[in-house]
């Protein structure tokens, strides 16, 4: 009871004091505002990236290897890889025959083209030529119908499997299975629709793609070279051995001499994970640096203003003590004031961060789960407590007689 009353009184005094010194309070909160904006934005992007990443990573199975010309994160050495030979589609067959670890091998090649259905059309759709085994290496399920069959691939039948977005845009409510559409002017029959996958890393949609037998693809786009061979392995635990085996097979296919470097890359999910962790690490480090710095500056500002406030109100402290305020009550009064100032900065910072989030969204995906907002509020309260405790303690220990005499 007494505690709540005193808390209520403390809140009242704190608000009075903050409103009595509007400019002073505003300037004091500046450091906290910057700190909270920074910590909130940091968490928003890390969280946003994380969400995008988690939903994308399943599109790249942990047990799938990608044999490609380029390593996924070439960095500054990109020129080294430029002159590598392209990966041939035929390697897929060789790998399938020789590898002991592979359970499914699918070559993929892609091009962009126009899709047409009656008067409806979609430009710039990614057309992927692949085989029936792609369904195992891609980690995606079929929503309606089925994936292309081995027979269809071998016979190079004009069939296609479409992404969820294409089904939606071209067919609307009509069931696309068994219907024909035109890819680059050629007629294909839809045999399946894939389930919705969302955007890869929050950026590129995986649902506006169409899959056709690789033989068909080669006839339509004979100039397209450079395949990716996707290989699903039996057992996650043997991934290192599988990579070694694949490298061996590739080196044989490429007829590389022992002293020659690999002229291909075996990519895996882990690389993406590393890149993600690195990005998050950089954002985290930079964000944390700015946050800590500005919160220290902000905290010192609050502490300073609290010392001023205690000094200015020495007589008030004396009066309160004379009528029965305990040390705890005085401590609480000034602590609450420090927390209020800091919290004010926190709330303003949070609002700014949400607004700035829309800007950041153009470059990196952001997300604002409740915990991010609560954490920011919690941090600003903590800063208030830390920077208010010493001035408040000092106020609580003031001698009542001395304080009453203070001019």
């Amino acid at each position: 009871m007494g505690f709540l009353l005193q808390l209520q009184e403390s809140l009242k005094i704190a608000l009075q004091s903050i409103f009595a010194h509007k400019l002073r309070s505003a300037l004091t909160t500046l450091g906290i505002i910057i700190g909270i904006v920074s910590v909130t934005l940091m968490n928003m992007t890390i969280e946003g990236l994380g969400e995008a990443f988690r939903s994308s990573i399943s599109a790249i199975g942990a047990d799938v290897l990608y044999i490609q010309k380029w390593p996924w994160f070439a960095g500054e050495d990109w020129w080294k890889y430029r002159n590598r030979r392209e990966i041939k589609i035929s390697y897929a067959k060789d790998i399938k025959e020789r590898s002991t670890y592979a359970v499914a091998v699918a070559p993929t090649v892609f091009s962009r083209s126009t899709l047409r259905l009656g008067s409806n059309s979609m430009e710039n759709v990614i057309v992927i030529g692949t085989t029936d085994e792609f369904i195992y290496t891609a980690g995606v399920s079929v929503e309606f119908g089925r994936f292309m069959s081995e027979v269809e691939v071998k016979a190079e039948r004009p069939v296609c499997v479409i992404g969820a977005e294409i089904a939606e845009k071209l067919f609307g409510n009509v069931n696309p299975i068994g219907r024909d559409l035109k890819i680059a002017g050629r007629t294909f029959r839809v045999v399946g629709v894939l389930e919705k996958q969302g955007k890869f890393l929050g950026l590129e949609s995986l649902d506006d793609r169409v899959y056709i037998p690789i033989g068909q693809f080669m006839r339509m786009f004979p100039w397209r070279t450079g395949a990716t061979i996707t290989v699903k392995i039996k057992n996650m635990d043997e991934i290192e051995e599988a990579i070694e085996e694949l490298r061996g097979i590739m080196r044989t296919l490429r007829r590389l001499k022992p002293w020659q470097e690999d002229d291909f890359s075996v990519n895996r999910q882990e690389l993406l994970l590393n890149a993600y962790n690195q990005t998050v690490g950089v954002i985290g480090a930079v964000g944390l640096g700015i946050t800590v710095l500005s919160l220290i500056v902000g905290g010192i500002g609050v502490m300073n203003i609290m010392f001023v406030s205690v000094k200015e109100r020495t007589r008030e402290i004396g009066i309160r003590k004379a009528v029965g305020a305990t040390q705890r009550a005085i401590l609480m009064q000034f602590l609450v004031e420090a927390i209020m100032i800091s919290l004010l900065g926190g709330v303003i910072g949070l609002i700014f961060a949400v607004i700035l989030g829309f800007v950041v969204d153009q470059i990196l995906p952001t997300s604002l789960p409740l915990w991010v907002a609560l954490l920011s509020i919690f941090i600003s309260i903590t800063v208030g407590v830390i920077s208010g405790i010493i001035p408040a303690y000092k106020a609580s220990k003031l001698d009542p007689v001395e304080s009453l005499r203070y001019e």
Partner: protein
Amino acid sequence: MPLIKLENIVKIYDLGAEKVHALRGINLEIEKGEYVAIMGPSGSGKSTLMNIIGCLDTPTSGRYFLNGVNVSELSDNELARIRNKEIGFVFQMFNLLPRADALHNVELPLIYAGVPGDLRKKLAREALEQVGLGDRLHHKPNELSGGQRQRVAIARALVNKPSIILADEPTGNLDTKTGNEILALFDELHSRGNTIILVTHEPDVARHAHRIIRIRDGMIESDEKVVDRIIAQKG
């Protein structure tokens, strides 16, 4: 059992280079319901004594019993509680919170006593009505005259129904007429059974009390009953 019992109270201010002996062994008993004036020249130790009686300050040595409780042994928190429940202070400088209105100033001791909102407002309003300020509840101190401010301070001293009201030169900052109004208020409070201790320089003010204690150089010089008591007329 006396309400207040002081045994050999000594207060020394240690200023490093020199020691100021503000009180040099005060022995004193005050009964419940007494009206006592403390007189003495400037610097004789009157305020120091009042502050010790009011538990705002602690003696360097000696024992102080309030209602039989040895106050000199209490913790800071317990002293705060005693100031809150047992003591009502009235100062020469009024000592009101400048930003709070009359009502809130009077509520202050009740807040620290943990009295809930509605009851608190009611008690504070009653106390202000008792000192004749029922129509000034929401005036800030700077919107009140000196006499009115002192009434607010008295209402604040009264509101917790304390055992003692301590007034350190309550009329010192007021003109004679306003001062007399304040003294009339004390007379009335006394007639209702309140114990009052009042510090003053002026013999005319002291003659409102039953008993005058004179202090000089931190010691009691005389302690006598008032024979020709003045009872102030209101208004």
